[in-house]
C-alpha cells in the first residue's frame, strides 16, 4: 500500500526486491494529516482494492527469471561529440546531477581503472534503493563524469563499499523525504597526496578533490542506486550538499586521535567515512571558556524536530582547530567532550509536539522505557555515538551535523595499487 506520491518508489522497490508481481494498492497522499473521518473513507475504498488485488492473478508482465543474471560490463552508446549536446543527451535520460559532466569515454574509464588491481566487473556493493551493481567499472564511469582524476578511483571504491553496508542503511537515506546527503570524510596520508582540503573552507568551493569526489559519490547514488530525484529520492526539498559533500579531517590541527584511529585503523592507514548528514549548522562561538563553548554546542544540538532525538542518533561535531585546542587545553579528552555534550544536550521530550512526541515515545521506549513530556531524552543511546572530528581553518566556527534516522557512519580502508597514487 503506497500513498499516491510514492507510486514510483513502490514500483522501483518491486523490481529491486525481486518481486515484480507484488501487488500495490494506492491511497491518497498525504494521509498523515487526514481527519479521522477522512481516514475511514480512505479505508473503505482501499479495503476493496486490497481484497481485489489479493485475489487476482499476477499480471503476465511480471517476469520471473530462470537463472541468476551475470554481472554485465557497461555498454557504450553513440552520443553527440559536442559537449553541450552530449550533456543534453545525458540529462534527457536522467543520467546526471544537473551539472556539466565530462564524457565517460572508453579511454578515460580505462585510464581510471589502472588505479586498482580489481577487475572491472568486480561487484563492490549493491546500491539501494535500486540495488544497482556497483562494479569497479561503473564506479569509474561516475568518477570520470564527475571530473575526478584517475588516481581518485580507490577512494570511490571504498566509498561505495561504505555506503553499501547494512550498517549505513542507504535505503533510508536514498528514499526518505528528509534532505539526507552523504558526506565523505577522508583520513590518512592519502588526503594530502590527493590534495583533499581539510583546512579553511574545506566544505566550500575551490578544491578539485573535494568537489569531484563528493560529486562522484552522488552520481554513484543516482546512476547506480537509482535515486532519481522526485520519483525515488523523495526528499521534500533536498539540500545543496546533495551535489557534493567531501572533505578531509585536519589531522595536524587535531590534539586528539583522528577519527580513523579512534575506529581501529593505523594512523598511516587511508580511509573514507560515509556519513548520512542532514545538514551543516554553523556555531559561531567566541567565548573563551571551554564550559561556555561546550554549553553552546550542547544547546545547538537540541531541536525538537530532530530525528537524532526521535530514535537515538549518531550526530557529528566538526570542531574548528580553535575550539578543539580550547577543550584540549582544559584537559578534556575527546571521550570527555562527548560525555559532557551527551549529558548537557538532553532535551525535554515535551518540546516535540503531537505525533512527533508519539514517535519519540515509540522510538526510544525500548531504550528509555515510558517517556512523559518531562522526560529528559539524550541525543544518542550512548555518548560514544556522538562523533567528533577536527576540520577547517582559522576562526571561531564549529559545525553541528545532525544525521539521518537509523544510519550509522561507516569507515572503510582505501586500497591502493602497489605503484601508489600518482599516474
Amino acid at each position: 500500500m503506497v500513498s499516491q506520491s510514492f507510486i514510483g518508489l513502490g514500483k522501483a522497490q518491486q523490481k529491486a526486491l525481486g518481486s515484480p508481481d507484488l501487488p500495490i494498492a494506492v491511497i491518497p497522499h498525504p494521509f498523515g494529516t487526514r481527519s479521522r473521518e477522512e481516514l475511514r473513507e480512505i479505508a473503505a475504498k482501499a479495503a476493496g482494492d486490497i481484497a481485489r488485488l489479493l485475489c487476482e492473478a499476477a499480471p503476465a508482465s511480471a517476469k520471473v527469471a530462470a537463472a541468476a543474471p551475470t554481472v554485465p560490463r557497461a555498454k557504450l552508446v553513440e552520443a553527440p561529440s559536442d559537449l553541450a549536446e552530449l550533456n543534453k543527451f545525458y540529462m534527457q535520460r536522467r543520467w546526471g546531477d544537473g551539472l556539466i559532466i565530462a564524457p565517460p569515454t572508453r579511454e578515460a574509464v580505462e585510464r581510471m581503472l589502472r588505479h586498482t588491481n580489481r577487475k572491472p566487473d568486480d561487484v563492490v556493493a549493491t546500491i539501494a534503493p535500486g540495488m544497482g551493481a556497483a562494479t569497479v567499472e561503473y564506479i569509474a564511469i561516475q568518477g570520470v563524469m564527475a571530473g575526478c582524476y584517475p588516481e581518485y578511483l580507490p577512494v570511490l571504491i571504498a566509498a561505495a563499499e561504505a555506503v553499501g553496508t547494512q550498517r549505513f542503511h542507504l535505503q533510508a537515506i536514498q528514499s526518505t523525504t528528509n534532505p539526507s546527503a552523504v558526506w565523505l570524510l577522508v583520513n590518512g596520508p592519502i588526503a594530502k597526496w590527493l590534495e583533499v582540503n581539510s583546512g579553511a573552507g574545506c566544505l566550500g568551493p575551490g578544491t578539485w578533490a573535494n568537489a569531484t569526489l563528493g560529486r562522484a559519490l552522488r552520481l554513484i547514488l543516482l546512476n547506480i542506486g537509482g535515486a532519481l530525484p522526485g520519483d525515488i529520492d523523495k526528499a521534500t526539498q533536498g539540500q545543496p550538499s546533495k551535489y557534493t559533500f567531501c572533505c578531509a579531517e585536519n589531522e595536524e590541527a587535531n590534539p586528539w586521535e583522528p577519527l580513523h584511529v579512534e575506529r581501529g585503523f593505523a594512523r598511516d592507514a587511508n580511509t573514507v567515512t560515509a556519513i548520512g548528514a542532514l545538514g551543516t549548522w554553523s556555531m559561531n562561538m567566541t567565548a573563551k571558556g571551554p564550559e561556555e563553548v561546550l554549553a553552546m554546542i550542547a544547546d545547538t544540538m537540541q531541536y525538537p524536530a530532530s530525528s537524532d532525538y526521535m530514535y537515538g542518533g549518531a550526530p557529528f561535531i566538526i570542531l574548528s582547530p580553535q575550539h578543539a585546542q580550547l577543550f584540549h587545553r582544559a584537559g578534556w579528552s575527546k571521550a570527555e567532550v562527548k560525555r559532557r555534550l551527551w549529558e548537557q544536550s538532553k532535551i525535554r521530550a515535551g518540546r516535540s509536539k503531537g505525533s512527533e512526541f508519539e514517535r519519540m515515545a515509540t522510538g526510544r521506549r525500548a531504550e528509555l522505557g515510558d517517556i512523559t513530556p518531562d522526560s529528559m531524552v539524550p541525543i544518542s543511546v550512548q555518548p560514544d555515538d556522538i562523533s567528533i572530528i577536527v576540520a577547517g581553518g582559522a576562526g571561531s566556527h564549529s559545525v553541528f551535523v545532525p544525521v539521518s534516522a537509523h544510519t550509522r557512519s561507516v569507515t572503510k580502508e582505501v586500497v591502493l595499487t602497489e605503484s601508489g597514487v600518482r599516474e
Partner: protein
Amino acid sequence: MSSNSSTSQVYDPVAPCLTLPRQSRQTLNSLAGKTIGFIDNSKPNFNLLVEDLSRELIEKHGVKAVVKQRKRSASQGLSESLMNELVSQTDAVITGSGD
C-alpha cells in the same frame, strides 16, 4: 550555439539491478476465513488506517482475523523474528510506504 552532428562512443552510466526476479505472489481464492497481517510503519495516522482497514476487511470481506506488528520507525525494517512470526500467523501481509 552551433550544432555538431558528429558522434562518439561514451558509456551508459546506469548500472543494472542484479536481483533475481522471483514469483513472490500467492493469490488467494477469497478473503473469507483468512487471517491478514499488517506491518504498521509507525507513520502518523497509519495505525488508525490499519484499524479502519481491519474493520472493513472483517465486516465486508469475510476476513477472520487481523494481526498487527508496529515498526519502531518508518525507516527501519521489521525484525526478522517478528516478520517470521507474522508470516506464520497469516495468509497475506500488507505494509505501507508514503506519508
